[in-house]
C-alpha cells in the first residue's frame, strides 16, 4: 500500500474528526485545551474567528462534530463539544477590546441581503479589510432566523444582541426594516459584489381537507415561532398538535408548552429514528411531557363550522420495495383521530426568490433554485454570491457561517482579480509537544469520566416562562471536567521510519492496539491482519515504509487515544507527538497570495 503522505494538510485534518466534520472547521481540541486552562477569552477568540457566533452556537448548534468525536468510538458518548463552546462564551472577559481593527476604506462596496448568520459572516470577514459593507434586512433587528425562529428559552436575546453587536461594531452599514424588493434595482446601484443570504423563509403548508375552513387555528411553524419571538403571539390553546419531525417541530412543541399548551403532542409521518430532529432535541421535548407519535400521515383537519376540533391520521408502516427503498404504506388499520384546539405545521421550509427578476441573466434550476458554485458560492452572475439556506436549501447556522466564509473569500479574491475556482489551502502549524524525555506540553493522561450532563433549570419554573433559559450551562468546574475528556486528536502521532529500530515498544504499550509492524499488502487485505482488525473504513491507515526489515508500520487511526505512550516508550524518537493546527484561510491577504 502507498505510504501515507502526511505533508498533505487533509491527512491529519481528517484525524481531528470534530474539526473535519465541522462545516467551518473550528479547531475544537485547541479551544477545549484553553478552556481546561481557564483561558476562556482565548478559547472564545478561536471560536469567534472560525464560527463567528460561539455563544449562539454553544446553545443551538446542530453539532456535526459530536457524532464524529473519537471519544464516542472508544467509550459511550462523545465530548460535549457544543456546550464547552458555551463555557468559553459565558466566562470570557474584555472581548470587545480584541475585535479586529478596521482597515481604511478600500473603495469597494458590498451589499449583503438578509441579516442572518450567512450575511453577518460575510460582513464580519470583509468589513475589517476595508470593504464598505451594506446589510439589508426586513426585520427591526439583525440576526435573521437566529432571532426570529429560535425560542428564547434556548437562546436568550442578550446573547444574540452581544454577538451580532460584535459584527455591527466593525462598521457595516445596517439597512434594517428595509426589504430588498428587486435584484435588478440593487444591481443598478453599483455594488462591486452582492451576497444573498436570505435564508429559507417560507414554511411549507399542508393542503388537506379542512385547511381553509379551520385556518384560524392552524399556524405555519416558523411564522408562529417568529410571532412568539417578536411578542405578537403570547398564548395557544390547551390541546396542541405539532406536525413534523424536525428541529422546528421540537421548538414549536416546547414553545407551545410554555404558552398554555397542556396537552401538546408531536405527530410525525416517519418512524422515531428517521426523524430529522437532533436526538437531544427530541429528548428535551419528551422530557417536557410531549409525546411523539410516529407513522401517522395527516389526512384531514376536522372542524365544527370553521372551529378546529381535531385531526385525523392514516396509520402507515415502513416497507422496503424491490429496489431497497423505504416507503411508507398504509397498514389498513382504521384512521386515528386526535382532538385539538390548535395545530402547528412544521413540515419543512422552502426557498423563495420572488424578488429576483428572471430576466437579469441569473440561471435557476428546475426547482427554482439559483445555480451556485459549491465551493465558490458564486451564482451565474459573477459578482453575485449566495450562502446559507438561500444557496442550497435549509441547513443550519454552522453551515450558513461556513458558506459566509467561503463567499467572503470568493468576493475578496474576485475583487482582487484572482481565480476564485482555485481555493486557498489551509494554514498548517506543526509543533512538537516534547518537553523533556517523557513529558509533553499537553495533558496526555486520559480521563475516564463519562460525559457530564448540562444542568437544567427546574422544569416547573422553565415551563411557566418562555424566556427562561432551560439549560444553565456547565460552570467552570464541570467545564474543566468535561474538557478533560477531550482526546487531543490534533496532537498527531508522527512516525519517522528511518530512525525506527523495530523494537515493538510502541506496539506493546498502545492501549488501543493501533500499531502493527507487518509485511506490506493492499489496503483491504492489510486491514484484516493488524494487531486489532481495522473495520472502520471511514478512518485511514497511516502506513510508513523504509524500515530496516522491509516491513511497514501500519497505524489504524480509528481509536487512537493520542495518549502519546507510543512516543514515550520509543527509544529513538521515531514516534513524536506533534500538534497540527489547521487554520482555514479566510478572506484577506492570505487568500490572495497568487
Amino acid at each position, binding site marked *: 500500500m502507498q505510504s501515507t503522505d502526511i505533508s498533505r494538510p487533509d491527512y491529519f485534518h481528517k484525524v481531528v474528526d470534530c474539526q473535519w466534520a465541522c462545516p467551518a472547521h473550528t479547531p475544537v481540541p485547541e479551544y477545549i485545551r484553553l478552556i481546561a486552562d481557564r483561558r476562556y477569552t482565548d478559547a472564545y477568540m478561536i471560536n469567534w474567528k472560525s464560527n463567528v457566533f460561539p455563544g449562539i452556537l454553544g446553545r443551538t448548534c446542530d453539532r456535526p462534530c459530536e457524532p464524529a468525536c473519537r471519544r464516542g468510538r472508544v467509550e459511550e458518548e462523545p465530548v460535549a463539544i457544543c456546550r464547552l463552546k458555551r463555557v468559553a462564551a459565558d466566562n470570557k472577559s474584555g472581548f470587545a477590546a480584541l475585535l479586529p481593527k478596521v482597515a481604511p476604506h478600500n473603495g469597494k462596496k458590498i451589499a449583503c441581503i438578509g441579516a442572518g448568520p450567512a450575511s453577518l459572516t460575510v460582513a464580519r470577514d470583509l468589513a475589517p479589510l476595508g470593504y464598505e459593507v451594506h446589510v439589508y434586512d426586513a426585520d427591526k433587528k439583525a440576526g435573521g432566523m437566529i432571532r426570529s425562529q429560535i425560542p428564547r428559552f434556548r437562546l436568550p436575546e442578550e446573547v444574540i444582541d452581544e454577538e451580532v453587536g460584535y459584527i455591527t461594531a466593525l462598521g457595516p452599514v445596517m439597512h434594517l426594516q428595509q426589504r430588498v424588493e428587486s435584484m435588478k434595482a440593487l444591481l443598478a446601484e453599483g455594488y462591486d459584489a452582492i451576497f444573498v443570504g436570505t435564508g429559507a423563509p417560507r414554511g411549507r403548508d399542508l393542503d388537506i381537507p379542512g385547511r381553509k375552513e379551520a385556518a384560524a387555528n392552524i399556524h405555519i411553524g416558523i411564522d408562529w415561532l417568529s410571532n412568539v419571538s417578536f411578542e405578537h403571539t403570547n398564548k395557544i390553546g390547551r390541546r396542541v398538535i405539532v406536525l413534523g419531525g424536525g428541529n422546528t417541530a421540537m421548538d414549536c412543541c416546547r414553545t407551545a408548552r410554555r404558552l398554555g399548551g397542556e396537552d401538546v403532542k408531536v405527530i410525525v409521518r416517519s418512524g422515531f429514528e428517521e426523524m430529522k430532529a437532533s436526538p437531544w432535541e427530541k429528548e428535551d421535548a419528551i422530557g417536557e411531557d410531549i409525546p411523539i407519535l410516529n407513522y401517522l400521515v395527516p389526512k384531514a383537519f376536522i372542524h365544527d363550522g370553521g372551529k378546529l376540533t381535531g385531526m385525523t391520521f392514516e396509520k402507515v408502516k415502513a416497507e422496503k420495495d424491490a429496489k431497497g427503498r423505504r416507503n411508507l404504506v398504509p397498514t389498513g388499520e382504521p384512521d386515528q383521530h386526535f382532538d385539538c384546539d390548535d395545530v402547528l405545521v412544521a413540515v419543512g421550509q422552502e426557498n423563495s426568490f420572488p424578488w429576483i427578476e428572471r430576466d437579469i441573466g441569473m440561471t435557476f434550476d428546475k426547482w427554482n433554485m439559483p445555480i451556485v458554485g459549491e465551493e465558490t458560492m458564486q451564482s451565474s452572475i459573477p459578482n453575485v454570491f449566495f450562502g446559507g439556506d438561500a444557496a442550497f436549501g435549509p441547513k443550519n447556522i454552522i453551515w450558513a457561517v461556513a458558506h459566509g466564509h467561503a463567499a467572503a473569500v470568493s468576493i475578496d479574491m474576485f475583487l482582487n482579480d484572482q481565480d476564485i475556482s482555485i481555493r486557498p489551502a489551509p494554514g498548517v502549524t506543526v509543533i512538537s509537544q516534547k518537553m523533556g524525555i517523557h513529558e509533553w506540553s499537553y495533558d496526555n493522561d486520559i480521563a475516564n469520566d463519562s460525559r457530564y450532563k448540562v444542568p437544567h433549570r427546574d422544569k416547573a419554573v422553565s415551563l411557566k416562562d418562555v424566556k427562561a433559559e432551560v439549560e444553565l450551562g456547565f460552570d467552570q468546574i464541570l467545564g474543566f471536567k468535561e474538557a478533560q475528556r477531550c482526546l487531543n486528536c490534533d496532537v498527531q502521532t508522527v512516525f519517522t521510519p528511518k530512525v525506527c529500530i523495530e523494537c*515493538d515498544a510502541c506496539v506493546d504499550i498502545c492501549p*488501543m492496539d493501533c500499531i502493527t509492524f507487518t509485511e506490506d499488502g493492499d489496503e483491504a487485505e492489510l486491514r484484516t491482519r493488524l494487531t486489532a482488525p481495522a473495520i472502520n473504513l471511514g478512518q485511514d491507515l497511516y502506513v510508513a515504509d523504509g524500515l530496516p526489515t522491509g516491513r511497514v508500520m501500519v497505524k489504524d487511526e480509528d481509536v487512537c487515544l493520542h495518549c502519546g505512550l507510543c512516543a514515550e*516508550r520509543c*527509544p529513538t524518537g521515531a514516534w513524536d507527538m506533534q500538534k497540527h493546527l489547521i487554520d482555514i484561510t479566510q478572506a484577506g491577504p492570505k487568500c490572495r497570495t497568487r
Partner: protein
Amino acid sequence: MTYILKPKLHHPSLPKNALGFTRRDYEGRVSTLCAGCGHDSISAAIIQAVWELSIEPHRVAKISGIGCSSKTPDYFLSQSHGFNSVHGRMPSVLTGANLANRDLIYLGVSGDGDSASIGLGQFAHSIRRGVNMSYIVENNGVYGLTKGQFSATSDKGSKSKKGVENTESGIDLVALALQLGATYVGRSFSGDKEQLVPLIKGALSHHGPAFLDVISPCVAFNNHTGSTKSFDYVREHNEAVNRLDVILGRTPITAEYKAGEVREVTQHDGSVLRLRKLHDDYDPTDKIGAANYLQERHAEGEIVTGLLYVDPEATDLHDRLDTTARPLNQLNTADLTPGADALAKINASLR
C-alpha cells in the same frame, strides 16, 4: 519512565479468552525500564501466552531474582502470585515453592547476570533436579543496571558500546540446559513475538523443566554495531529451525499444512506441539543432534532459534521423589499425624 498510567480504555473489538478475560486483564504496571527495552516485549509475549492459554491468573507464581529482567514480573500478570527474591536465588525459591504447592504454574524470570553469573549454580541444579517450571532468561549480554559491562553470556569478540572487545568466552545457557537435563529447551528473540509467544505457551504447558533463552537487546547499552545481541545482528543471524503451534486438549485443528512440512509431538499429558519445519533435517527430540547442531551453527556465528529440544515423556521432581499428590497447604491434621498405629507399621517395615 512513563508518568501516566496506561489508559483503561481498550479497542472495542478486543477479544476475550475462555475465562472471559481480555489480554488487558493480564497486564501489570507500566514498565519503568528504558524505553524500547527488549524485556518489555517479552513481558508482552508472556501476557499474550497466558491469555491465550486461558490460565486463571491466581494459578501462576512468577518468581524472579535481581536485575532489569527480574523487575519485569511487576509489569505483567498483576493478579498472580509473585516473589522478587535475592540475586541469583530465583531457582531455589522456585524449587521450594514448587515442592510446597505443586498445583501452581511456575514462571521463573531471570537474566543473564542473574542466571549465568551469580546464580549459575542455582540455575544448574534446579534444571538437573527437574523442577516443573518455565525458566525464562531475558538475555541481553550486558549488565544494564550498572551501565553496560559485559555479562557472562556476552560472546567472545563482541564489542561494548565504547568499542572495547570482549576477550572472555560466553556461556551458552541453552547448551548448558540441554546437558543438565532440561526437557523443553528453546531460544527466541524479543523482537519476534510470532515465534516467542508459542514457545512460552509450550513451556507453560510442558510437564518438566522448561528453559527458554530469549535474546533481548539492551537498547541503552548493547544495541550498537559490533554487538552480537543487537536488533540488527540478531535479525541478520537468526536461524529458526521451526515454528511452533501449541494445541491443548481437543481443540479442533484448523490450519492447513502441506505434507512433510509439519511434525507433531504429542506429550505425555495429551497436548500436541505442532512444529512447522523450517529446517529439513532438524529433529527436536534428538538431544545429541540438537547439541551438535547448536555447536556447529554457533561456530558459524549463527543464532539458532525455535524449539530446540523436547522430551515428550518428561517427568519432574515430584514424580521422582514420589511426593504427596496434594499441595502441602491442603494436608490436614489426619494426613500429617497419622497416629501411633501408622508409626508402628513403619517401624515394623524397617525391622
